[in-house]
């Protein structure tokens, strides 16, 4: 009797660049990896709202205020599509959110850094969204269909956010001496954490090889990081700002920028929960959840009553 090896068939299928859809057979570790990755991504969108929302009430012009509020609202929307994409894999949104609130699930460490000045809103848009886009553009071609499609939509909005962020930086750099100092200070603080967003070096990255083989990931952490640096350095030059890396240098031979060593010790500390704002971010999410409990209960109770009344009505 001929036996069919599902795993091999699956591997051939993704290698022929076909998309995996919710009802298809998939190896359990593929499903688990995706649930973990997509939910972490969703949590990052939702936690990522906090450092920026921090500045909505203080935005220095009405145009900037409206743009920032709209941007943070887009992130909530991204969180929603991503939770929905995770649900297509059989995960439950309430459980995923529970894991975030209990501290079991991870989210992008970048959001554990504080936003200290208005220029941070520019720097986040330019650098953090820029780094996120490098990763997300790749994910538009990921092997899981619903994730890939969510990414196409998210990338469009993220590119818009990145332009907005860069435009904030541009206005500051064309402005007064204090504004330019604000911009440089923000770049100094966000540059290295942005490079860390791509994750550990390829040598250290434990999950990467399997994800590449399943075509979930299409480029390595180091490749994506290099692309980001190559793209961003000329943008900093255009602003007249200095990247805080003395070893940064253009390499004719490779056609890439060489850069100094990344402080991975800091990275692992923030990941473990020792970043400047880890505690505040989780507390803020927990507070919103706890304060909202009575509201969600009331909405459910009302929906149930309405349903019952409809039932009585149609029975009568």
């Amino acid at each position, binding site marked *: 009797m001929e036996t069919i090896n599902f795993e091999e068939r699956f591997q051939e299928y993704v290698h022929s660049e076909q998309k995996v859809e919710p009802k298809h057979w998939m190896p359990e570790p593929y499903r688990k990896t995706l649930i973990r990755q997509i939910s972490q991504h969703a949590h990052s969108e939702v936690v990522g709202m906090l450092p920026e929302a921090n500045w909505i009430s203080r935005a220095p012009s009405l145009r900037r205020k409206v743009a920032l509020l709209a941007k943070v609202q887009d992130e909530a929307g991204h969180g929603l599509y991503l939770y929905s994409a995770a649900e297509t894999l059989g995960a439950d949104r309430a459980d995923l959110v529970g894991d975030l609130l209990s501290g079991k699930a991870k989210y992008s460490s970048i959001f554990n850094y504080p936003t200290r000045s208005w220029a941070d809103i520019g720097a986040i848009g330019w650098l953090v969204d820029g780094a996120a886009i490098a990763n997300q553009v790749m994910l538009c071609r990921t092997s899981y269909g619903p994730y890939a499609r969510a990414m196409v939509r998210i990338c469009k909005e993220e590119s818009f956010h990145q332009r907005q962020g860069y435009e904030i930086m541009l206005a500051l750099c064309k402005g*007064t001496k204090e504004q330019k100092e604000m911009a440089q200070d923000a770049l100094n603080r966000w540059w290295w954490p942005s490079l860390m967003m791509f994750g550990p070096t390829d040598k250290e990255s434990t999950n990467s090889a399997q994800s590449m083989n399943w075509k979930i990931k299409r480029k390595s952490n180091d490749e994506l990081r290099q692309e980001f640096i190559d793209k961003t350095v000329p943008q900093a030059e255009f602003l007249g700002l200095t990247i805080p890396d003395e070893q940064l240098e253009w390499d004719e031979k490779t056609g890439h920028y060489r850069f100094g060593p990344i402080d991975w010790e800091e990275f692992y500390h923030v990941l473990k929960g020792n970043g400047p704002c880890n505690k505040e971010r989780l507390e803020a999410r927990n507070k919103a959840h706890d*304060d909202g409990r009575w509201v969600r209960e009331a909405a459910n109770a*009302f929906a149930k009553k309405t349903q019952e009344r409809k039932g009585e009505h149609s029975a009568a």
Partner: protein
Amino acid sequence: MENPLLSYTLFLADNSLITGQRLSEWCGHGPILEQDIALSNIALDHLGQARMLLQYAAEQKGEGWTEDRLAYFRDEKNFRNLLMTELPKGDWGYTVMRAFLYDTYHFYEMTSLLQSKDKQLRAIAQKAIKEIRYHAQWSAEWVIRLGDGTEESHQRIKRSLVELWPFTGEFFETDEAASGLNANGIAPSYTHIRTQWNAKVEEVLALATLERPADGWMQSGGRKGAHTEHMGYLLAEMQHIPRSYPDAQW
């Protein structure tokens, strides 16, 4: 005395600005992601309306005034918004009840302004009315849901209704400038708006199993620039960057 049209435009503008500023405090902190998005959307509508109205006020004022200079460089006593709009956001029930009482009023006010003899106010009302209709519907639905939800939600929203009620009297006050504008067909009759508002509020409160509080002593002062203690903090937060760097462009 300030030109009545300018004074009235600023009254409308400041109500939208302060409402938008308060509502945007919920962004990132809502009870569920879907409602976080809905409320941010509503805050965005108010801020968008505030910008159109402030631009119109700046045009009337001339002499280099802009929407931002009006928002960021006026002192508290020159803000004319209703006191209710500046009260702290409270819990979700308080925010929803305040939104309902104000949105219902705002809806009838803007509906009347669709007939204004002032072309610019009419145009702004035309642009805003769809948004405001949605706000009034959204907040009425939430009042009903919380009023007729659980015992806890009923008690909470009832308390908010009682606390907010004394701030509703100010909605319908008319000063000399406003009655003059009404006579010229520019501003609506607030007596008429009061009748419409009363009917709608009673209808929705009944559906929410809530009792309409009696009209007792009403708070007043916003239009004249006599604000609550909360207003100073709101403005300090909103205005501090432009005021710290008065020569900067952002």
